[in-house]
């Protein structure tokens, strides 16, 4: 297992470098007018603008800029924000925002897994009966209608119905419920639909027929044989889901005004706050790749039949 892990680590590192370099260079393609606030741009003349840009370091050769970025990184210095929180270190911003996304994300993940796996088992056991039908309707609605629409309607209707606050307040736990619940809805659907599919696939296998024929009660067959094997392909995605909770949800955080990470990236790109964009892309791609890596290893540990040298059997499709 050792050499395999080392080689995979090397490959992952290589991918991280490519991702970061491409995003870094893409950012350099954006128009330089984006570095100014509107008043600044109007008030400055051409020479002042050039001086401002040179002072900021964006006129240097991109390779040199990348060098600065890397040497800063070695000193755990991700630079300072330019436009959003002028001159605040990026690390400070992340440290302040990440916990919101992390806690909401983890809470939602726990709920998604609990309810989603439960619903999946129920749907597989009651295949083609009422429970399966209701579950399918739920999954279809959540997955087919653009989430913005139902997230917005939930906020409007449920807060009106129960008299809960429309936005997030750090000191009022009742305002945390809806964001967490909304965040869980698509996760529940994801777990339910894939678990159902894998369980139904598994149910047609010979070993399941054998277990049924030898007289094992259906409940034992389902939990002891079918469920255990159906969970294997889902386990692969678990580390990535945990790690990427830190990225937050753009829609939910902006609908409920949660000061988390979700909207940060969009704002940073919009205001061309390059240090923040770079730091976030680096963070997300490292976490994403680490998640895939850990997922493969976890899957091998759970299912000894999976070979070390396989090319990461991506079974579940679009998440």
């Amino acid at each position, binding site marked *: 297992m050792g050499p395999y892990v080392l080689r995979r680590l090397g490959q992952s590192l290589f*991918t991280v470098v490519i*991702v970061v370099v*491409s995003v870094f260079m893409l950012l350099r393609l954006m128009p330089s007018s984006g570095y100014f606030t509107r008043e600044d741009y109007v008030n400055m003349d051409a020479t002042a603008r050039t001086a401002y840009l040179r002072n900021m370091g964006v006129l240097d050769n991109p390779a040199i800029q990348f060098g600065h970025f890397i040497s800063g990184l070695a000193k755990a210095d991700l630079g300072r924000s330019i436009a959003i929180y002028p001159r605040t270190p990026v690390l400070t911003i992340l440290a302040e925002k990440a916990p919101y996304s992390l806690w909401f994300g983890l809470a939602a993940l726990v709920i998604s897994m609990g309810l989603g796996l439960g619903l999946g088992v129920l749907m597989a056991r009651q295949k083609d009966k009422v429970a399966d039908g209701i579950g399918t309707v739920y999954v279809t609605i959540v*997955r087919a209608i653009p*989430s913005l629409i139902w997230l917005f309607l939930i906020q409007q209707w449920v807060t009106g119905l129960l008299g809960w606050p429309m936005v997030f307040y750090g000191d009022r736990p009742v305002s945390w419920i809806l964001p967490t619940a909304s965040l869980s809805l698509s996760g529940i659907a994801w777990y339910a639909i894939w678990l159902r599919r894998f369980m139904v696939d598994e149910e047609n296998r010979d070993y399941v*027929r054998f277990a049924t024929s030898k007289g094992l009660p259906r409940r034992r067959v389902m939990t002891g044989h079918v469920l255990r094997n159906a969970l294997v392909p889902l386990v692969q995605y678990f580390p990535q889901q945990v790690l990427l909770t830190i990225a937050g949800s753009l829609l939910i955080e902006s609908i409920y005004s949660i000061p988390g990470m979700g909207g940060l990236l969009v704002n940073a790109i919009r205001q061309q706050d390059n240090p923040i964009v770079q730091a976030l892309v680096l963070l*997300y791609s490292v976490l994403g790749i680490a998640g895939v890596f850990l997922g493969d290893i976890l899957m091998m540990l759970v299912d000894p039949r999976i070979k070390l040298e396989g*090319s990461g059997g991506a079974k579940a499709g679009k998440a």
Partner: protein
Amino acid sequence: MKRPMPDLAPELFRPALFDEAAAELTGYAHYSYWRSTMRTFLKSPVSIFLLALIVVLVTASFIYPLVSPTDPNRVDLDTATWNMEPGSGHAFGTDGLGRDLWARAWYGTRTSMLLGLIIAILDVGIGMIAGALWGYVKRLDRVMTEIYNVLNNIPQTVFLILLTYIMRPGFWTIVVALCTTGWIGIARFVRNKVLMIRDAEYNIASRCLGTPLHRMILKNVLPYLVSILIMEAALTIPYSIGSEVFLGFIGLGLPLDTVSLGNLVNLGKNNFMLYPYQLTWPTLLLAAITISFYIVGNRFADASDPRNHV
């Protein structure tokens, strides 16, 4: 000594598992993959209904702009015609500038459908060719796998937003942005299938028996791929329409003078408290389209799986 027979009540027994497909296997005669797929697909009235609904909505959205004189962008200066309730001469009412929502809904559907269709065709076309090459040409494997890793690991929102900013918001920007990330997933899927099918035993056997290449491709490989590709196309359409709504929400969607379902939903959302119908009607139309495509895509995927054929 004679022991009495135990009471063999029927509830002590359960029927053995019966697999209809396996039972039919012995009666296997004129099996045609496509006929079986279509028969399985059309067996459900829900599939037929949704397919018909898609056809009707799409046709209507393309015919309406040709026959209706109403301009969806005509702003009325008379404030009396602003925010009119549905019914009053305007089937879906009017929006905050007196624009007719019925007309806007159909123009919007047309834009969103076009967007979805173009993206689906490009994604599936590029994905199929790239995936087939990826599967057949061994030297490409390293490069393609790396491209896959990179595209798959940049958070998709980052990619969409960056591209939209670099290229300015517009119809083709969204097409390019969604296609750049969309094709690779399909390519990966096709590649895995091609690898599996190419070296499957029935293909080796077929090759040994001297089946010509074109027949192998048409009869042995293509049926497995075409169904996947149709399904992918059907599922890409609601996904693209949804992405346009999302991009509109973060201000990177189509320009506001373009009528699209995304713009309608986002405008309607802002006025939801006062004039809920401005959101409800476009949303219902949008949901009818995305749900239909989603279900039809999934049902077709089930029907195209030979294991579900009878």
